[in-house]
Each structure stands twice: as structure tokens, then as C-alpha cells.
């Protein structure tokens, strides 16, 4: 054992003692495997440092250079002939062969395209999606609808779909009195229903109030007389004559799809169209999910 090794060992011991002192001093819980591993790692680094230092400082002190020099001298400085290690050389050859394969066979003339890969991935995903959800049952639709809702709808309607205290439409009930009144005042022609535009001011004053209260209240009890005007398009039961006009009584697939595809500018704010952002299955799923929210609050 020479003096260098003794110095290195002493240094390692100092480092290890310092590590242990820090661990004790900071009262670190060593039953936690992460802390334990960290301490073992620190000690290992101290030992490895001592070992490596000893080896290379020793080598610097004792090694003599030898071997054959290449022909050239650079201002009198020569260079040994060092052959490539064979493993390195074979890997290099392998990479050259792989590059030839890449250029000639794999992606001829650099034909790889990120967009192409994206298109293939999307196509495969869409095919898989269609196959998996060709005939989804209610439970699948509800859970898919919840996922889509949380990503696409929750930023405006809130995670519980309550419209974030009036910042968006409250989806846990069909419609509020203010919304009915606003629609009666302004009319509506936004949702692309077969019935076409609803003209403004079909009901006024007390009539409008009465019908708005009736519709917002869930259409229970006797309809006010003026409701016959609404019933002409929306149906006596308010359900929209099988999808000809918006359903006033409850959410149905037709209503949700029409709103999603056309967007809507209402009394609260503007909802953008989601036409290209959702598939028909996702729209149906959203509708199913929204219908499960009714009366949940």
C-alpha cells in the first residue's frame, strides 16, 4: 500500500463520515427506501472517486509510452499508430450498412415524412375507434361522454356542468326563465333545425313571463294559453315534434347535436361550433352524459 492509496482512502473515509454526519444531523428517516438509497449512492460515489483517482494518478506516475509512430511529424510532435478497437470498427461498418438500407430500402431518397406518420396513426386510430365503438351501450356512452365533457365542455360549463354560476349555460337543468325570455325577445335561427327561424316577440309582457316560468319550471301543470303559439313548432309536450324544432322539455340527441355542430350565441355568451372537433359517436356520448345529469344537483 503506497502513500497515494492511503491518502485516497482517508479522503473517502472523510467523505463517508461527512455523509453520515449530515444524515444524522438532519434527522433523515432512513426507513424510507429513497433516503436509504440516496445515502448508499453518496457513499458509493465517495469510494469510486477514491478508487478511480488512485488508479489514474498512479498510472500517470508510472506509465511509459510505447508503440509505433506514424510517418508525419507536426512541428516535431509524433503520433502513435492506434488501431481502432474491433468492436468500434464493426459497429461503424454496421451503421454504414444501415444508412444504405435507410436510403435505398427503408425510406428511399429520404422519404420519411412526419405528416405521413401522423396520417397513418390517425387513420389507424380512427378505424380502431369505429370498430370498438360501433354499437356502444349506455354505460360506454355515459363514461365516454363524461371524458369528452371534462376535456371539451368543462372549461366553460364547469366540471359539474352547472355553468359556473351563470358564466355558461347550466346543463343540469334544461333552461332558465331568463334564457326563455331572451329567446322570445330576439327570436332564434342558429341551430339549423328543419323548422327554420323562430321570429322575435311571439309573446309579450305578462304572456311571455307566464310561458317562460312554465317552460323553465319543467313544463309541469297547466300550460298558459299563450303556449299554443310555442306548441305550433315545439309540440304540445314541448318535445320539438320529433326533432323538427328544439326540445324545450329535456335534452335529447337532436338538440345536443344541433348545438354542438352550429354553436350558439345566447343571452349568456357565445358557444363555438364543435363540428370538426367531435365524431358522431362522441356527440351521442355527450348527449347521453348530459341526460344523466338532469335532476342530479
Amino acid at each position: 500500500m503506497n502513500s497515494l492509496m492511503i491518502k485516497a482512502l482517508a479522503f473517502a473515509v472523510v467523505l463517508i463520515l461527512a455523509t453520515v454526519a449530515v444524515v444524522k444531523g438532519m434527522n433523515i428517516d432512513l426507513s424510507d427506501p429513497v433516503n436509504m438509497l440516496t445515502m448508499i449512492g453518496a457513499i458509493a460515489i465517495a469510494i469510486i472517486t477514491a478508487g478511480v483517482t488512485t488508479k489514474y494518478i498512479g498510472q500517470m506516475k508510472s506509465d511509459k509510452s510505447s508503440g509505433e509512430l506514424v510517418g508525419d511529424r507536426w512541428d516535431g510532435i509524433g503520433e502513435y499508430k492506434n488501431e481502432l478497437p474491433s468492436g468500434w470498427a464493426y459497429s461503424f461498418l454496421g451503421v454504414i450498412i444501415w444508412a444504405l438500407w435507410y436510403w435505398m430500402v427503408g425510406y428511399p431518397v429520404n422519404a420519411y415524412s412526419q405528416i405521413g406518420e401522423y396520417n397513418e396513426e390517425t387513420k389507424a386510430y380512427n378505424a380502431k375507434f369505429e370498430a370498438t365503438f360501433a354499437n356502444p351501450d349506455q354505460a360506454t356512452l355515459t363514461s365516454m361522454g363524461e371524458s369528452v365533457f371534462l376535456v371539451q365542455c368543462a372549461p366553460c360549463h364547469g366540471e359539474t356542468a352547472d355553468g359556473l354560476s351563470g358564466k355558461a349555460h347550466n346543463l343540469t337543468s334544461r333552461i332558465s326563465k331568463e334564457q326563455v325570455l331572451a329567446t322570445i325577445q330576439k327570436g332564434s335561427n342558429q341551430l339549423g333545425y328543419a323548422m327554420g327561424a323562430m321570429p322575435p316577440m311571439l309573446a309579450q309582457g305578462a304572456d311571455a313571463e307566464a310561458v317562460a316560468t312554465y317552460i323553465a319550471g319543467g313544463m309541469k301543470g297547466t300550460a298558459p294559453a299563450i303556449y299554443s303559439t310555442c306548441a305550433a313548432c315545439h309540440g304540445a309536450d314541448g318535445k320539438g315534434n320529433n326533432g323538427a324544432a328544439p326540445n324545450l322539455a329535456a335534452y335529447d340527441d337532436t338538440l345536443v347535436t344541433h348545438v354542438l355542430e352550429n354553436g350558439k350565441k345566447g343571452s349568456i355568451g357565445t358557444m363555438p361550433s364543435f363540428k370538426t372537433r367531435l365524431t358522431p359517436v362522441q356527440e351521442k356520448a355527450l348527449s347521453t352524459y348530459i341526460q344523466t345529469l338532469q335532476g342530479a344537483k
Partner: protein
Amino acid sequence: MFHWLEKNPFFFAVGVFVVIAFAGLIEILPNFAEASRPVAGLKPYTVLQLAGKEVYKKDNCIACHSQLIRPFKSETDRYGQYSLSGEYAYDRPFLWGSKRTGPDLHRVGNYRTTDWHENHMWDPTSVVPQSIMPAYKHMFKNIADIDTAYAEAVTVKAVFKTPYDAPNGTPLGTVDEARAAALEEAKAITADMKNQDVKDAVAAGKIPEIVALIAYLNRLK
């Protein structure tokens, strides 16, 4: 084997330059020639939108929001169609960003609207409870710099030939026309807003920064 080359540093440098320049020629130049042309239907920013872009830069939105949708399924599902270089043709500078503490905004105009932005900039957690974005209430008070935005538009029109005043394009006109047009655009936006101070300011002919910013964000599609 190549010692003769190493003994001629000048020719060695020329050789290195040729090799690297060749890669640049075949990889970079075609892209400049084709993909960076404006995409069909792209119009230059209006003066109000440019003022909003200045607000976006000034308040450093780029530090947390990118404007570049990569062609990955997970990104296009969330943000929409991946970005094309031709879409940034009139962005000087483009605001790609490189950090997504918040979501990408390149197509935010497709899925958020004026009223949402108003709520969100006033108090982000009122619409996104987990949001760590700070509120930007000062934007409702500070007045946007329309004249500088106009100067910027005039400059890019003169220097980079950005097609303002083209048929069916974005009109620019004189500074008075531009101020009037910006105010009209601002009025259309404030019609969808609820903040009374902002509405009053616009009615008095001043445009708060929030209106310009919303004009810019609604334009990002």
C-alpha cells in the same frame, strides 16, 4: 490517408463549408420556397388584432403558452389541425413559444369565445378551478396602443409587402381610418362583454387592452 488535406487548412475549411452548405441547400431552401407561402385565405392582422398581439408580447403570454400544434394525435385531438408554416406568414415575429405551462393557443379562437376570455382574464380560477394562471385585471384598465399597431402595419406593408388594402383583404388606409376601424371592431367585441368599465371606455372612444387581446385571441384559428 487525409494528411494532405489536413496540411491545407484553407481548402479543408472550404470542403467543410461545401458539405454543410449542401445539406442546407437541399433541406432548408425548398421549405422556404414552398411551405412558407401564406396559406390560401390567410389575411394580415387588423390593427386592433396587432394591438392585441402587442399586449400578448408585452405581458409575456409566450412564457407559458405556445402557438404551435405538432402533428401528433394527442395534440390534434386537443387543439385541432396541426400548424402549417404558411399560417405564420404575416406573424412578425411568430410567437411559437417553447414552453407549455398553459395550453397551446394557436387555434384558441375555434373553441373559446369573447365572454369566456373576459371571465378568464379577470379571474382564471373562476372558470378553471385548478388554473395557476395569474389574473390580468390591469388589461381591463390599460388602454391599447392603436397608433403603434398602425405604424407596425404600415411598416410591414412597406418593407415586407404584407398585402394590406388588397381586394377582399384587410383594409388599412390612413391612420384616422385605421383608428375608426379599430374602434368599430372593438365595439363589436364589447357587445359580447359584461365589464361596464370596458364598455364605457370603448363608448368614449378608448380601447382597453383586454379588447385588443380578445380580438387577437379570437383571430387565432
